[in-house]
């Protein structure tokens, strides 16, 4: 059985982690390379760097960060934010990313998914979808959740997979930062509709939320950010709780 993954997301801007991240004994660590390595040591299964820079100028240091991270990180690294062409995707992979996540750029030009999969293989291509509950369904938003589209999240997820995405990262805008649990209905609707792995995102507050995302939401992976960064809990503690609850998580080397 493939185990359920715990994915740690770091928001970056100008080559630094933007939200303060506190580790025990350390007040604030803003260096993404250092942080990624620490989360690996804690038992994270995967790291995501999401670049929230407003301009391409501000985004420039990202590839250098990816390069330095790949030299120290021995778990998969996904990079997202501002990747809008095959060239940008290839540059991210060459720099050290194992996977690339795309969001607004694929809504604007869906064929980008097909082009990306042809070059890198579907397993490197993550379609990131931000969705909000509206009128009994889930509407897709772009540009960091600011711009509504006419797309339904489930239909869009299916189309992304048909075009070449090898994984879906589904974020609930309603739950993002709320720590009240993932939107299980949204997660399950997407996970049941596609044949690729699905990463649940938005709303994690405690271990039981992750267990629910896996068992009730049918997700393959669960993404975390805030509750780890503010020292509220650790990956190791969460995975220990998940293990006790009967969730199949990765064993660490003795």
């Amino acid at each position, binding site marked *: *059985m*493939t*185990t359920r*993954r715990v994915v740690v997301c770091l928001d970056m801007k100008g080559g630094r982690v933007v939200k303060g991240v506190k580790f025990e004994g350390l007040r604030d660590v803003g260096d993404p390379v250092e942080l990624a390595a620490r989360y*690996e040591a804690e038992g994270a*299964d995967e790291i995501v760097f999401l670049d929230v820079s407003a301009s391409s100028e501000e985004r420039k240091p990202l590839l250098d960060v990816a*390069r330095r991270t*790949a*030299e*120290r*990180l*021995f*778990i*998969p690294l996904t990079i997202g934010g501002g990747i809008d062409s095959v060239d940008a995707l*290839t540059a991210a*992979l*060459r*720099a*050290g*990313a*194992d*996977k690339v996540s795309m969001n607004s750029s694929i809504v604007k030009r869906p064929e980008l998914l097909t082009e990306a999969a*042809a*070059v*890198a*293989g*579907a*397993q*490197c291509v993550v379609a990131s979808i931000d969705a909000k509950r509206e009128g009994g369904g889930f509407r897709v938003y772009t540009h960091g959740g600011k711009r509504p589209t006419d797309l339904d999240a489930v239909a869009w997820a299916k189309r992304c997979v048909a075009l070449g995405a*090898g*994984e879906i990262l589904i974020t609930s805008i309603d739950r993002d930062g709320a720590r009240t649990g993932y939107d299980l209905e949204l997660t399950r609707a997407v996970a049941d509709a596609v*044949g*690729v*792995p699905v990463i649940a995102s938005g709303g994690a507050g405690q271990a039981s939320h992750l267990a629910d995302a896996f068992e009730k939401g049918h997700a*393959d*992976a669960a993404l975390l950010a805030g509750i780890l960064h503010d020292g509220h809990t650790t990956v190791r503690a969460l995975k220990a709780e998940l293990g006790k609850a009967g969730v199949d998580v*990765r*064993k*660490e*080397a*003795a």
Partner: protein
Amino acid sequence: MKAALFDFGAGNLHSLVRGLAQLGVDARIETDAKNCIGADLLVLPGVGAFGHAAQRLAPAREAVKQALVNDQPALGICLGMQLFFDSSEEGAGQGVGFIEGQVTRLTGKHVPHIGWTPVEGVPTEMYYAHSYACRPKDPAVVKAWSLHDGERIAAIVRKGRTVGVQFHPEKSSRAGLQLLGTLIREVTS
């Protein structure tokens, strides 16, 4: 020990180079596979798509095959392992053809297979990211299997001094690097 990695031009080689360095293996990157022949270890890394990689490998294909027949120690990771075989459903062109068999699409519910999966005889899970798997004609070359969605996947193959792994040991944390070291020792000693 000195290893030579054949770069097909598609993806991240940094983790593998650094992982090898941690194991005391000094790796250089070559864009012509012929230049990898004669190294202590020839490495076909695991990133990209089969058709593109086969095309890049084509001019050196026969020479590489001959080297493997002549006991050149070699390691293939993911796509690199698949390139030891004859051909793939993923794309046109030929693999090295050192191990007889085809590479075909996974048949389970979830394709690609992405995540940490147990490998027979290995104490911890290893990280997989693939849509295609090797189907050796001679099952005896398979040294360990993994199970994904009820389908058996050749996880580790070995023939002569050539070893291939379908998972990514360089992405499987500390346990992955340890296993990588063991496999390299087996084919080089």
